[in-house]
């Protein structure tokens, strides 16, 4: 059994109006030294498999087919064995 954490971010160069608006809000509330803010999605799922390589294969496939919009998004993931 694996616990998988998937992070989905906008590709470099793709505009992120949400991030820009959040940064602006942080600045105007008075927080100092805020640099670029980027928004994204975080998914966590369990995978009832034993072979880590096969699990990776399936995660990749899921990301490319449905979880991620490859037109504008990138993804990375962490995989950790659980009992």
């Amino acid at each position: 059994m694996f616990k998988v954490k998937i992070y989905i971010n906008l590709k470099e160069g793709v505009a992120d109006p949400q991030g820009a608006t959040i940064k602006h809000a942080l600045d105007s509330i008075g927080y100092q030294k805020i640099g670029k803010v980027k928004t994204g999605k975080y998914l966590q799922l369990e995978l009832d498999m034993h072979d880590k390589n096969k699990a990776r294969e399936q995660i990749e496939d899921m990301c490319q087919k449905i979880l991620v919009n490859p037109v504008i998004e990138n993804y990375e993931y962490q995989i950790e064995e659980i009992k």
Partner: protein
Amino acid sequence: MKEPVKIDKDLIKVHGLTDEEYEKIKEVLGREPNFTELGIFSVMWSEHCSYKSSKPVLRKFPTQGDNILVRAGEENAGAADIGDGFAAVFKMESHNHPSAIEPFQGAATGAGGIIRDIFTMGARPIALMDSLRFGCLSDARSRYLLKGVVGGVAFYGNCIGIPTVGGETFFDKTYQGNPLVNVLCLGIVKKDKIVKAQAKGEGNTIFYVGSSTGRDGLGGASFASRELTDESHEDRPAVQICDPFMEKLLLEATLELIESAVVVGMQDMGAAGLTSSTVETASRGNSGIEIDISLVPRREEGMIPYEVMLSESQERMLVIVKKGKEEEAKKIFEKWDLHAAPIGRVTSGNSFLVKDGGKIAAEIPVKALTTDAPVYLREKTKPEYLDGVRNLDLSDVPLPEDLNSIFLKMLSSPNIVSKSWVFEQYDHMVGTNTILLPGADAAVVRMKGTKKALALSCDGNGRYCYLDPYEGGKIAVAEAARNVVCVGAKPLAITNCLNFGTPTDPEIFWQFSRCVEGMAEACKELKTPVTGGNVSFYNENPQGAVDPTPVVGMLGLIEDIDYLCTPWFKKEGDLVCLLGEGEKSLGGSEYLYHVHNLKKGQPPKLNLHLEKALQKTCLEAIKKGLINSAHDVSDGGLAITLAECCILNEENLMGADINLKESEREDVILFGEAESQIIISCSSSNLNKLKKIVRENKVTLKVLGRVGGEKLTIKKEEKPLISQSIQELYTTWKNSLSSYFEM
């Protein structure tokens, strides 16, 4: 991106320029262009910006009329006089290719672009409409596209707070992979406050306002001017991301700015972004323009001049401010948290000068990029397929035995069903002006503080145009006009989106020319000039070109909202009548397509004199308060139109008992489509007065039956063809579209 060392043949080709065009560029400049200049020529001479193929054909459209204040092509949108010192500014635009690649963002940025076109003229946008076309709903990709496109329009319109008050959603396998996404925006402005998209007055300052510039949508204009191939999905960095919140700020700041009278002109940075907005405003003002792109706010590192000039980052505007008024303008932008940067000035010459700090990045005569851009008289030939598909032998079309079940099948066709799944995702009420909610013949928005209202409708039938482009073009205009007439509005003017295949294909160009000729003919006869719109070519997928699909957006004026007319039956005992007479045809009908899987035959013929008389009669009857409902007979023929009259008002379903005295085949009687017909209902006490108007206008009126009961019954010479409970009709019609999306 790195600047290429040398401009070679491949690079010219990649930019969509022909060898002849490249020679012309050298002639204009008296030298070889640099890379930035090549990019600028490429976008400004693209079909999208220059209309190089369509211009000679579009000249056939009538563009003048008593109430036309801004004619087609003069500004970013046309304007019509609606009385009381107000003008209606409206335009429709396509965003087909971006929506095919990324439906949500594609549709949303399409909505954003057309909204900017309206408010940069000083008008407050008060309504949106969308005309959408997709492949079959049974196909997963089509459902994905529909969901994304509707979501995108909803996200943008809802967030910015402009109601999406209606539109059309159509499905046909011809649009598989190449959906059509046409969005119309309507705004209102005081006549004397219309702002021009021009850069005038030497020394006036050019402001860049809004989002910063990134690499998104690089070369989108030339991208829209190419066919979609399987590789198009690789065009990924070109996807633009929308920011409706930014646009809301731009909208409010812009209108405030105009009130303060510091503005000379403004234009949206739409297709071809900074390039087209600077060049086009200078061209309209007969001025030169000078900008320094090192002053352009950027989102990304290391952008070269080429990229800055061609970026299509969204929610940006060019504002030309009077010299000396810069601080006043800046204050307003700051109030709305907007970044505004002065990037240049209007000059006296005729040169478009782009500097990058101290260096010259491009220098081109303004008019070479606009009015002097190449124009082509494209070859056209009548398509070979036409003779084959026009022939429809009815003996090849089996007459269904069970007409009741065919009736329900028709009512659940995606092209007939209730589109509430779509329009409930749109905030169609914000603004509290929507006095006729989506689903009727036309949408109606009132003008607060007056008795007036504006009616809007979208119409186009790609199947008719495929089978007969000329008649199809005529019908698109006539139906759109009839739709606004049905709600009690006088048709004023149209905007349009012309969606076609590749213009260098002579058969496609023939379709295009014939459609435009048909539309022009109808516009002249119905006195509804064309105020603008756009042409979208290259709508092709690997299976070929989409059906030629001109979409008409009609603006109508209701003088007094007390005479608003709705399509549904209202009173038990009212007479149901058919106003007007047109020859029924199964050619190109929804019935033939949905039940028999055929796209064949001659579409219904339209007699424009008859049409005009019909519309006049209907309006007169509405204004005199003689009729209680009016509904255009359209897709699905008489049976479907009658069903709609029974079930369109969900709060109060009404049955009807109809007896038809016709001799044709049953399916032709029920589902055959015809032009110039309106189903009305009226109290029997008004029948004689109605008949008088009908006679005066030389049209026809047939009493078909009466409103009432729990059923819709349609008989032929007293023999029942259809009898269905209206509750069942309603349920079938209401739930069919959402059932495709249930989890």
